[in-house]
């Protein structure tokens, strides 16, 4: 790894040469003896895609073919950038963004909070304040009145050229938006929001966003129903299969209602669960059946997938999916929407959507976790904790915990039903991101997955290993509970990458599965210790 301090102005350096070349295993000590490598881009990829930030291409931005094209892109970026500090164009986040841009005192307290900065061996370009500093200097010079003179006077001049724009686009996707830095900042400056807002002009003005988030993400969800590509018909087929499995598990028929008008709740689950982790849906069905709650799924477009990738890069797509979810709930005449185990869907629908939905669309929305807690801790279902007598640790999804304050229900459940429950350190609102936040869990093009595993997810894997330090023996099966589909996706890749299942028998799964596994009514263990 190239060391030596990168300066803010280095981002405007001309040419293709990356500011940083990550090519070996330096940085934070490795969490295991696994060899950490980040594959360089192929020659063909290097010729086609922008990679001059750190040799990684997350977005696959095609290189402009001419100076004219470069200039056009720069002007388009500038046009979008002008809208960021405008209360009219950017009313959605103007206040916290402007506050964050204007209030940083450069104490760098946030740097020690960032798992990416730490895991990279404190590489300057990953410092939480670096991208904010770049953005601030560009805004000061090109957008504020008299900016050119004041930038020159303060020595904070920065030329806006295509290399800056291309690097900034990639840099905005080297932050998981976990907002640990914001939690750490003594002044409440939110550098993660700055990352998110940096993504915005690229998406909302230039139409540049990771394919997995936009074309295959929000656009596909609105067009086909889900970023997984699952259509309403496929959903019904899937649910049929899940119902068959439920019958096998419980010995009786448990119906998963779809499009049941007038139900008490519309359960919004992540469609990834139906496909990759059907046991989570099965567990929810068993619990809701045991509680006798009137519930339904929706088979409407986007109604069977709680995800909303817009929250990570684009306000318009964010609002479109929020409105779509609310319209579906209204159409089904449910009393409220309950969000299943999906962190960002929680944050989006319960917190952010509260300033989007009005009138009849402002349908009550709540988390499934208090329901599960009520069922477990108030004795509404019979449980035998000895059925869960294996080491369990809890991963705190940032969206659930730090970003919306759902901290205790999941812990009270685990303390009640898992005799060998142990916390990761740190945990709760001070947790570390799984490394898959802000869309990273589903972004897998070119060499980005290597970066995601070795840098973004490194701290989380270390935490997982540390939590099971006393039971490393591979004979003992261990369970990382992650009540979030996105985090489960990242944990699946992370544990595979570090061969944690083979070496330490570390498995992962949701919270509902552990509850059902402890249910007295079920004769056979619900958790099968199979790798998904």
């Amino acid at each position, binding site marked *: 790894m190239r060391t030596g301090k990168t300066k803010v102005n280095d981002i405007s350096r001309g040419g293709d040469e990356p500011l940083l070349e990550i090519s070996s295993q330096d940085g934070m000590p490795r969490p295991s003896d696994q060899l950490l490598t980040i594959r360089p881009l192929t020659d063909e990829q290097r010729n086609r895609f922008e990679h001059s930030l750190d040799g990684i291409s997350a977005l696959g931005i095609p290189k402009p073919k001419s100076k004219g094209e470069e200039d056009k892109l720069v002007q388009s970026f500038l046009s979008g950038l002008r809208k960021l500090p405008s209360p009219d164009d950017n009313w959605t986040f*103007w*206040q916290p963004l402007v*506050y964050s841009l204007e209030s940083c005192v450069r104490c760098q307290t946030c740097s020690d909070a960032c798992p990416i900065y730490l895991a990279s061996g404190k590489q300057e370009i990953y410092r939480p304040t670096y991208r904010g500093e770049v953005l601030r200097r560009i805004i000061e010079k090109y957008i504020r009145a008299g900016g050119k003179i004041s930038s020159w006077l303060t020595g904070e001049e920065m030329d806006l050229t295509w290399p800056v724009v291309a690097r900034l686009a990639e840099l905005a996707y080297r932050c998981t938006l976990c907002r640990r830095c914001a939690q750490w900042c003594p002044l409440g400056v939110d550098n993660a929001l700055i990352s998110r807002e940096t993504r915005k002009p690229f998406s909302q003005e230039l139409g540049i966003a990771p394919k997995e988030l936009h074309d295959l993400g929000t656009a596909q969800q609105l067009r086909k129903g889900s970023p997984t590509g699952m259509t309403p018909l496929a959903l019904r087929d899937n649910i049929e299969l899940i119902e068959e499995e439920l019958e096998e598990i419980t010995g009786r028929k448990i119906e998963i209602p779809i499009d049941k008008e007038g139900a008490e709740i519309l359960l919004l689950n992540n469609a990834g669960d139906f496909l990759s982790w059907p046991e989570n849906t099965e567990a929810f069905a068993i619990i809701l059946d045991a509680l006798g709650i009137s519930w339904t799924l929706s088979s409407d477009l986007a109604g069977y997938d709680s995800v909303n990738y817009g929250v990570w890069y684009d306000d318009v797509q964010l609002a479109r999916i929020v*409105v779509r979810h609310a319209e579906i709930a209204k159409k089904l005449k449910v009393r409220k929407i309950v969000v299943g185990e999906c962190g960002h869907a929680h944050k989006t629908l319960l917190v952010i959507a509260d300033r989007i939905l009005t*009138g009849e669309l*402002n349908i009550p929305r*709540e988390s499934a976790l208090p329901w599960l807690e009520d069922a477990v801790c108030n004795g509404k279902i019979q449980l035998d904790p000895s059925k869960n007598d294996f080491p369990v640790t809890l991963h705190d999804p940032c969206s659930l915990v730090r970003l919306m304050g759902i901290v205790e229900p999941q812990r009270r459940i685990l303390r009640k039903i898992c005799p060998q429950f142990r916390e990761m350190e740190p945990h709760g609102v001070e947790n570390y991101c799984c490394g898959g936040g802000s869309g990273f869990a589903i972004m897998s093009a070119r060499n980005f997955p290597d970066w995601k595993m070795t840098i973004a997810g490194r701290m989380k894997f270390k935490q997982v290993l540390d939590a099971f330090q006393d039971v490393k023996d591979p004979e003992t099966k261990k369970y990382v509970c992650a009540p979030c589909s996105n985090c489960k996706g990242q944990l699946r890749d992370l544990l595979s990458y570090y061969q944690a299942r083979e070496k330490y028998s570390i498995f992962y799964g949701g919270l509902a599965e552990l509850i059902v596994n402890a249910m007295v009514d079920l004769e056979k263990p619900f958790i099968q210790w199979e790798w998904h």
Partner: protein
Amino acid sequence: MGGIVLFFFYGSILFCVIASVVRITKYVRAPLHLRWELYRGSSVYELPDWWKESPGRFGEKLTGAVLDILFLREFYHRNRSFWYFLFLFHTGFYLLFLWHIWLFITAVILPVESAGSGGLVFGHVATGLSLIGGSGILIKRIFDEELKVYYPRTHYLKWLLILLILAAGFLAVVFHFDSNMPDLLRYVKVQVTFQDLEHKLHPALAPASHVFFVSFWLLYLPFSHIPQIFFRYYQHLRWDDVPNRKGSAIERKVKEHLNRPINWSAPHIQPGKRWEEVIREVKDL
């Protein structure tokens, strides 16, 4: 020269007030934004039917704000080595603020001859704390590798100015007023009550230097981080758990925003239409 100092001083006060009002007005008029919260612990979302809960956390927020401002708690927990000097400086600064209020009130309403040395000790302690803290901050900003990162060079000048203000004030009290409180209070009385214009137009060098540096600082103050306090604790930046209820002022504001035209121009957005229209149209995606 005295006239310039006088004009500069009162002009800087006027400028500071107007510019601060303009800046604070900008924050107060900020549009309602999407909720982007951050929590230190459990929130109402841990409860079923959370929207029925009354947030009622004004007292808690206010207490938090006061404790943060007085003790810089976040720095204490997250950046202890920097906190020591920050805390000394800010404590001294707050005490100096109180000391000036005490000076103004005492000079005007109490017989100045009866002033004892307690006030003098108070002022010296406050100035000493600020000087030690301010010097420590400046030294750390110069030599600490982390604290140097991206720190604008103009901010080094800011600290120099603050130290000059403190030193000039201290020297004026000790040498010009000879640490004599009645003399100092008589001088302050003249300033505050606008008596004896001749005296004002021909100030002595030591107090004039102090006032001159303060005037510079007042010009800078509205652009500093201090007015940001309003922004942080005001207007829904954190812990805004007030739900958007039907028929509420929040809902009215949201509707107003959704009625605004959208100007972003990526292919998946139709610029010129209203937000309300755009977010309901998905056919061209």
